[in-house]
């Protein structure tokens, strides 16, 4: 118990005995640069989040599944992907236009550009909706029996039915809808392949293709989720600008939402070639 000194003895020599001012700290100034730094740090976490998924995608693309990814990628419509890329790039443009407008003090132009950004974001989601439902129509979705096949082997559909569908009320015949010719004979694999693009009931997927679509849904799904969050943030900005709380004096909020929005665009810039152009 030897070291406890009395505080006054030790400390006062260190203080210059001038008049001590009261503690002054920022009252109503938000720290513009600090807020921006905080948002950038958050963007770093998003970069690493998606980066890890890109790592997994790269591992599979450059690895054993190269050919199958190529094959599976053909089922994605390049024009829809390219279109969505243009939509997002344009929305990034309208976003920076909004910031410029706000800095120049024109509230209505700002609202216009923000509104356009939101509209383009929603357009992106609409295109994505059609893409996904298009896949669902072709029975390409996780846990579908086509995918189950990769797990249980192509000729073991009865095992799949036993384990996954028996209790659901589906009959084995309904489940087992293998394409048949007009004569009622089961089609051979070559005949199945030769069928025209359309809603034919059954297609067999290899493991590589299963992984491709798994990654596709996971990554575009996570990206789409971020687009939705972006729309909400943009709506909030519209609200604040319209109300007049965010002006050319404190435009930091809009700038920071813009930074988030550009990140969403950035991720798509990499997603597009890796999924759509890999074919």
């Amino acid at each position, binding site marked *: 118990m030897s070291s406890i000194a009395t505080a006054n003895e030790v400390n006062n020599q260190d203080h210059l005995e001038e008049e001590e001012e009261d503690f002054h*700290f920022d009252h109503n100034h938000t720290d*513009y640069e600090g807020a921006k730094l905080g948002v950038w740090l958050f963007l770093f976490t998003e970069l690493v989040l998606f980066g890890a998924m890109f790592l997994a995608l790269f591992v599979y693309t450059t690895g054993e599944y190269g050919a199958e990814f190529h094959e599976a990628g053909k089922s994605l419509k390049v024009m829809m992907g390219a279109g969505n890329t243009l939509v997002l790039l344009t929305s990034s443009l309208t976003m920076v236009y909004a910031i*410029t407008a706000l800095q120049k003090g024109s509230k209505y132009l700002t609202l216009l550009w923000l509104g356009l950004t939101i509209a383009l974001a929603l357009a992106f989601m609409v295109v994505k909706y059609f893409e996904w439902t298009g896949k669902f129509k072709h029975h390409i979705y996780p846990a579908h029996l086509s995918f189950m096949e990769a797990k249980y082997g192509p000729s073991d559909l009865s095992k799949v039915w036993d384990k996954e569908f028996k209790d659901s009320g589906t009959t084995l015949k309904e489940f087992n809808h293998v394409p048949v010719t007009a004569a009622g004979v089961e089609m051979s694999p070559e005949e199945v392949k030769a069928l025209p693009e359309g809603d034919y009931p059954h297609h067999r997927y290899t493991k590589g293709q299963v992984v491709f679509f798994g990654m596709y849904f996971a990554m575009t799904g996570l990206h789409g989720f971020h687009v939705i969050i972006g729309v909400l943030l943009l709506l909030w900005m519209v609200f604040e600008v319209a109300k007049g709380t965010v002006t050319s004096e404190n435009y930091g909020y809009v700038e920071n939402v813009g930074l988030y929005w550009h990140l969403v665009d950035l991720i798509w*810039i990499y997603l597009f070639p890796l999924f759509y*152009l890999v*074919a």
Partner: protein
Amino acid sequence: MSHDHEHEHHVIGYGSHTLVYIGLLFLTGLTVAAAGVDLSWAVNLTLAMIIATAKAGLVLTYFMHLKYEKPYLQAFILGVILFMFIVFCLTFVDYASRV
């Protein structure tokens, strides 16, 4: 504590933004066209990544204002990219050396 009572109101004009946008459109067209040319998948992939990185660079530098930010922020972004790149490479030490 730094008080930025007058942080630079650096306003980038509509024209400058539009130029960057045109550059992005051009690169997008380029990448779609390049995908049509059938070189080996490794070359195609590398080309696509280079073009994507060029687009990302334009978005980061101009749209996200990085060119006009303080040096420490620019250093951070480069550091993060470098960090991710090293992690990628180290993971591929495993995958690339598999037969």
